[in-house]
């Protein structure tokens, strides 16, 4: 099975307006930089993006904001930490101005919603968020004396992930903390597209140490090691 594509542009060519797309990355680590740039270039609109934060330590995402491509964002740490930086930030401004709708979750819930989407589990209970704004509109149920919220799986049409190495069949290996959300998003994606720093032949990765099995990955594109821009968060 050769899942490789020649370029990021070709790998994302069929993404339509209105798609829901998840993006790996924890601030600066493990960003699908090349795929995100290609998406900005493609210019599709009305996107729902699922990502830790939009444009904080992640300039590529920011371009989607300034291009007006995003309709809705599902995040866990959406804004710059600093209130003053936030006030200047295009994403925060778009949210404040009602141009982008924002939905937020605690990280543990956010990532578990993605994993569950990939695991065929439509809903799960968590104690996180009880008694907070996160609980609004959600079912509360008591397990062993502790209140928990019902949270639902979050499937996505496309997932963009960034891996250190990948083989032609989609087996992926991440590097250090660049692993972060990439595996859960690969699981959640109906179509998962992996950009890999180095593409190898099937059999070159140690089969005992694959972070994301190829079955979760539909497309692979080699994009090299991204240049690092140490953005402020």
């Amino acid at each position, binding site marked *: 099975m050769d899942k490789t594509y020649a370029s990021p542009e070709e790998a994302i060519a069929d993404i339509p307006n209105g798609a829901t797309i998840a993006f790996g990355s924890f601030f600066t680590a493990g960003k699908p930089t090349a795929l995100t740039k290609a998406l900005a270039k493609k210019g599709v609109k009305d996107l729902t993006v699922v990502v830790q934060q939009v444009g904080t330590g992640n300039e590529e995402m920011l371009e989607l904001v300034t291009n007006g491509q995003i309709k809705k964002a599902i995040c866990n740490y959406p804004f710059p930490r600093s209130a003053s930086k936030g006030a200047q930030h295009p994403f925060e401004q778009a949210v404040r101005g009602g141009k982008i709708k*924002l939905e*937020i979750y605690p990280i543990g*819930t956010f990532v578990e919603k993605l994993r569950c989407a990939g695991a065929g589990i439509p809903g799960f209970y968590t104690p*996180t968020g009880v008694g907070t704004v*996160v609980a609004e509109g959600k079912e509360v149920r008591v397990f062993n004396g502790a209140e928990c919220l019902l949270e639902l799986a979050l499937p996505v049409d496309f997932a963009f992930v960034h891996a250190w190495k990948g083989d032609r069949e989609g087996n992926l290996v991440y590097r*250090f903390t660049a*692993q972060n959300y990439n595996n*859960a998003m690969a699981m959640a994606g109906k179509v998962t597209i992996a950009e890999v720093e180095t593409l190898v032949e099937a059999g070159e990765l140690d089969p005992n140490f694959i972070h994301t099995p190829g079955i979760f990955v539909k497309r692979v594109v080699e994009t090299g090691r991204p240049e690092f821009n140490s953005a402020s968060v």
Partner: protein
Amino acid sequence: MSKMSKVVIPEMPPLEREMIALRIANMLEDGSYVNLGIGIPTLVSNWIEGRDIIIQSEIGMLKCGPLADEGEQDQDRINASCQFVHELPGSCYFNVETSFAMIRGGRMDVAVLGALQVSAKGDLAGWNNPARGLGKTGNIGGSMDLAVGAAKLIVAMEHFTPGGEPKILEVCNYPLTAKECVDVIVTNYALIEVTPKGLVLKEAIPGITAEDVQKMTAAKLIVADDFHEMEL
């Protein structure tokens, strides 16, 4: 809000942030797994070098080492605050779903978090400052999971807001991170435990009396039988 204006900020210079961190470091037991939040909590790591304490970073790293200086920085090795860190012998990396399985699953012996407000019942408000005007949105990050999941939750914060308002209140009026989750509050003036009977004042910095602490706190304090001067 009426209570807020009643508190009295003392003349005594408070502890530096590093000293709050030191007091907390001295509370940590060897052999424990600890998660440190952004801000003062992160400074705790400066005081535990060489000790048998393992720091978890919720980005997906156990045995997270000290900050890495320029030249030693790797773009793929950052902590949850986006700072470059070192790896230690025995470190390991994992994905975020596993990281929060650990946190929510109760494997964190201690979490140290900053706070905007703490209530008399140990409610924590730390993720959303209404002054920022973001309504019901904001940066939750890992704070809610840590607050419900950690076996022991220590709050590290200044006693007052920059505007001089008290942060320890009968009831929080900022959006909550979690209810009844805080075990200990360490501020730049005092150490207060949250107990089923209420807030128990255990320690104050030199030159500050129990009465002083009560005056600077907008919630009723019970003075511990063994109330004493904070040792650092």
